[in-house]
């Protein structure tokens, strides 16, 4: 049997030039029972590489780790209410924005109409404030008296000022 290919592979193996597949091939090759003596000496190396792959942890390891990991978070995580409602988050956000904008628009609109009502100078739109004419008369006369009082006081002040200037 010609071992040239294997020898070439081995050369490349020592030089770290082989691929993962070629290294697998070498390990498989060295599993066969009869090898020429110059290759037999390398059997332990590739046999070791194959057997070391099978080294495992004990059976009780899983239980030990799982007891330390929060089991609920392993399986229930997908079923939380928040996770299920996730597709609706955007829709809810859009509704909230429209609602807020609507509220703001309504508020400004109401403010505008209130201001308009306060600045209305059309006498035809005026309404009576008092039902009893006597009370209305008294209110008007007291308001007029206050105005005339004010005017008189300011007139007196003015007279004083002119006499002072004349002096």
């Amino acid at each position, binding site marked *: 049997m010609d071992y040239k290919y294997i020898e070439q592979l081995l050369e490349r193996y020592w030089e770290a030039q082989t691929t993962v597949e070629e290294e697998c091939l070498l390990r498989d090759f060295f599993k066969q029972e009869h090898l020429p003596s110059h290759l037999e000496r390398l059997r332990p*190396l590739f*046999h070791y590489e194959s057997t070391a*792959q099978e080294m495992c942890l004990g059976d009780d390891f899983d239980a030990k780790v799982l007891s330390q990991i929060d089991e609920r978070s392993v399986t229930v995580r997908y079923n939380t209410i928040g996770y299920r409602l996730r597709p609706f988050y955007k829709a809810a956000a859009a509704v909230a924005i429209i609602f807020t904008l609507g509220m703001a628009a309504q508020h400004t609109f109401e403010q505008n109409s209130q201001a308009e009502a306060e600045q209305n100078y059309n006498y035809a739109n005026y309404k009576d404030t008092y039902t009893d004419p006597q009370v209305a008369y008294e209110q008007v006369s007291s308001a007029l008296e206050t105005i005339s009082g004010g005017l008189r006081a300011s007139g007196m002040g003015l007279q004083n000022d002119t006499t002072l200037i004349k002096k």
Partner: protein
Amino acid sequence: MINFKADVLPLKNRLYRLALRITLHTGEAEDIVQETMIKVWAHRAELSGPQSAEAYSMTVCRNMALDYLARKESRHAALDDAAHEQADNAASPFQQMARQDGLMWVGRLFDQLPEKQRTVMQLRDIEGKPYKEIAAILGITEDQVKVTLFRARQRIKEQFEKISRYGL
């Protein structure tokens, strides 16, 4: 989304072999695998998928094993005898014994390599990982992985040549 039982737990034996190759201590290696898994699970939100979970787990495992080495001087003991499989039944008892001895000797040879070299040998020759993945796990470039692997294999080759010249 990472699932513990499907994506993290199946890595246990690979992590164990790596931790054992670095620490050379079975009990310590098992503890390191456990701690690694707890840490990986705690950081699951940062992982993009099962592939990154594997690379991340291997990195965490190696770092924890290196921490152990830094804390305690490596004893450079041989790996467990239980790790070595029975040789072919077709071989004679004498051949079987010789092969078992050979395997133990190779195991010691691997473990006597400097840490970086034996980690690269473990990941490449035992786990069959491509250079790219090994580079990601060790946090070095692919070229550095190749150089490290080259040195490790050269050293092993030298030992084999010594044996063929002088015997075990």
